[in-house]
C-alpha cells in the first residue's frame, strides 16, 4: 500500500469527517439533522484525539475522548429536549422558524 504515515492518515480522515459534518450542518434546516451533524463533528474531533494519543503515546488524548463522549451525551439529551419543546411550540423542526429572538 501507499506509504502514508498513520498519523497523517488518521488526521486526514478526521478532517474529512469533520468537514462533512460541517457541510451537513450548513445545508440542513431540520433541527434533528443539525444535531446529527454536530455528532459527526464531535466524533471527528474525538478521532483526532485518539490519533494524537497514539502518535505521542500518551493517554491524554483518550481521556479527552472520554470527556467528549460525556459532553456529547449531555448535549444530546438537552438538545433533544429543546427540540421537543420547539416542536411543540412551533409545530415544525425548521430551525429558521426559531429566529424570532434574532439571537
Amino acid at each position, binding site marked *: 500500500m501507499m506509504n502514508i504515515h498513520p498519523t497523517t492518515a488518521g488526521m486526514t480522515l478526521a478532517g474529512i469527517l469533520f468537514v462533512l459534518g*460541517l457541510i451537513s*450542518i*450548513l*445545508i*440542513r*434546516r431540520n433541527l434533528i439533522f*443539525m444535531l446529527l451533524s454536530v455528532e459527526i463533528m464531535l466524533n471527528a474531533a474525538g478521532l483526532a484525539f485518539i490519533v494524537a494519543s497514539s502518535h505521542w503515546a500518551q493517554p491524554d488524548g483518550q481521556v479527552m475522548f472520554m470527556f467528549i463522549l460525556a459532553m456529547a451525551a449531555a448535549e444530546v439529551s438537552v438538545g433533544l429536549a429543546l427540540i421537543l419543546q420547539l416542536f411543540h411550540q412551533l409545530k415544525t423542526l425548521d*430551525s*429558521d422558524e*426559531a*429566529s*424570532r*429572538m*434574532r*439571537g
Partner: protein
Amino acid sequence: MLYLIPALPFFSALLLILGWRTFSRTTVSVIGCGSIGISALITLAQGWQFLQSGHDSMVQHLWTWVQSGSFNAGMDLRLDALSLAFVFVITFVGFLIHVYSTGYMADDADYGRFFACMNLFVGAMLMLVLADNLLLLYLGWEGVGLCSYLLIGFWYKDPANGYAARKAFIVTRVGDTAMAIALFMLFQYTGSLQISSILEKAPGMWTTGHATVVLIAFLLLGGAVGKSAQLPLQTWLPDAMAGPTPVSALIHAATMVTAGVYLVARTNVLFDLAPAAQTAVAVVGAATLLLAGCSALVQKDIKRVLAYSTISQIGYMFLALGVGAWSAAIFHFVTHAFFKALLFMGAGAVIVALHHEQDMFKMGGLRKSLPGVFRVFLIGSASLAALPFITSGFYSKDQIVWLAWSSAKGHTAYWVIALAGAFLTAMYTFRMVFLTFYGSYRGHAAPHTPGSSMMIPLYILAFLSTVAGFVELPHTLGHVTLFSDFLQPILPAVQMLQESTALEWTSQLLAAGLTFLGIYIAWVWVIQQPDGMRRFAEMPFMQWLRGFWYKGWAFDELYNELLVRPFVRTARLNRRDLVDKVYTTLARVTEWCHDALARTQSGLLRWYIMGVLIGAVLILSVLIWRIYI
C-alpha cells in the same frame, strides 16, 4: 446682627420654596411678611446703633467666600450711610409691599411661589447694597436679575409674560456683561474687589481722565444703565409690567431699578476720576428723562404710564449723579421709592377694584367709588409731579433741578431739560389722575373697595411720601440738611459753581410754575376740552408722534432691526450647524455600522455557523501564511 438683615429674607425664601405647597396661606403670609418685617426692625436697631457709634462704616466679616492666590472675596457686609439708606428703603417699603401683596394676591393659586420669589428678591437686593466687595455685589446684582425674571414671568401661562421676562433678563444681561468686564479690569489693576480699598487706591493710581479709569467707569455705567432701565437699555422696563402689580411696585419702582444709581453712587470716586464717564451719566439721565416723559404722556395702560415715569425719575437720579450731586440722587431715590411704590400699589388697588382692568380709558370717575384709593393716589401723584412745598417729590426733584444748573459739573442745558421733564411729569401724572378718577366711569365691571391689608400700606406710604421731603430742605426754604449730612462721610458734597439765593428762587418758582402749568394742561386736555385735544391729536403729524411715543420712541423696532433680525438671519444661515456636522457624521457612521451588524443578527442559525466557518478559514489561512510562506 447685621447679617440677619439679608439672612432672614433668604431663609424665609428657602423655607417657602421648599414648603409652599404644604403651607397654608396664613403660614405663607406670616413667613413672607414676618421675615421682612423683622428685617426692617433689625435695620432700625442696627441703624440706631450705627448712628450712635459715630463710625463712618461698619463691616461684618461672615466667612471667606473665595480665596485664590492674591484674590480674596469674603462674605463681608458693610453698613454705612449709603447702604443704610438703601437697606432702610428696601426693608420698609418691601415690608409694606409684602403686606399689600397678601391682599392683592389673595386669590392667586401660586400664592406661596409669589412670596418665595419676593423674599428671595429682597434678600438679593439687601445683599447687593450691603456687599463690601464687588463680587458679592455682583451676586446680589444677578440675584435680583433672576428674581426679576421669575416675577415678571410669574403668570407664565401667558406666553407674552414669558416673553417680557426673557426680554428683561436678556436686555439687563447686556449691562451685566459690561459690569462684569469692569470688575475684571478693576481686579486686574487694583488687585482687589474690596470696594473701600479700590476707592482708596484709585486716586493714587490714575490721574483724572486716565483712559483706563474712564473705560472702567463707562463699563460700570453700562451695568447701571442696564439695571436702571436708562437709555439705551430702557426697553425692558415697560414690558416688565407683565408681572403682578406688587412686583412692579417693589422691583420696578422702589428698589431693583435703583441698583444702578447705587452702583454709580458707590463708585463715585471712579466717576470723579473719569469726567467723560460722569458727563455720560448726566447725558444719559437727561436724555432718558425726556424720552420716557414723552412716552408716558401717551400711554393707555396705567401701569405703563408709571413704568415710563419710573424710567424718567431714575433719569433724574442719573442726572444728579452726573453733575456730582450724589446725595441729591440718593435723596430722590428715597422719596421716589415711597411715592412710586404708593402709586404702583394705588394703581394695583384700582386694577383689582376693576377686576384686572388696566386701560385708563376704561376707568374714570373712580373718585366717588374708591375715595380712599383716590386720596392716597392723589398724594402720590402730587409727589411725583413735585407739587410745591407739601410733597417730598418737590424737595428732592427741586434739588436736582437746581444742582443741574448750579453745580460745578452742571450745565444750563441740563437745567432746561430737567425743567422740561418736570413739566412733562406733572402733565402725564395728572393726565393719569384725571383719566382714572375724574369724569364719568367708562368701564363695565362694578368697582369694589380693596381690603384693609391693601389700604393700610397705602396710608403709611402716603404719609411717608409727604414727610420724607422735610429731612432735606433747600437754602431758600428753611435749609435743613439732615440727609446730606447723614451721607456726608460716604458721598462727597456737591461742588457749587454759583451760590445765588435769587437764582435758586427763580429755579424753584419756575419749576413750581411749570408743574402747575402741566397740571392745568392735563386738566384742559382730559376734562375741559377733550374734543379739542382729540382734534389736535388727530392731526397727521401728531398722530405719528403719538404712535412713536407710544412705542417708546420705537426702540424696540430699532433693536429688532439692528440686532434681533440679523442674528436670527445668521442663525438661520447656520441652521445645520457646521461644527455639528462632524458629530452628526460620526453618529451617522456609527448608526450605519450598527445597521450593518444588526442585519447579521438574523436569527438564522446556519448563517451563524457560516460566520464561524469563514472565521475558521481566515484564521487557518493566516496561520498557514505566517508559518509556511
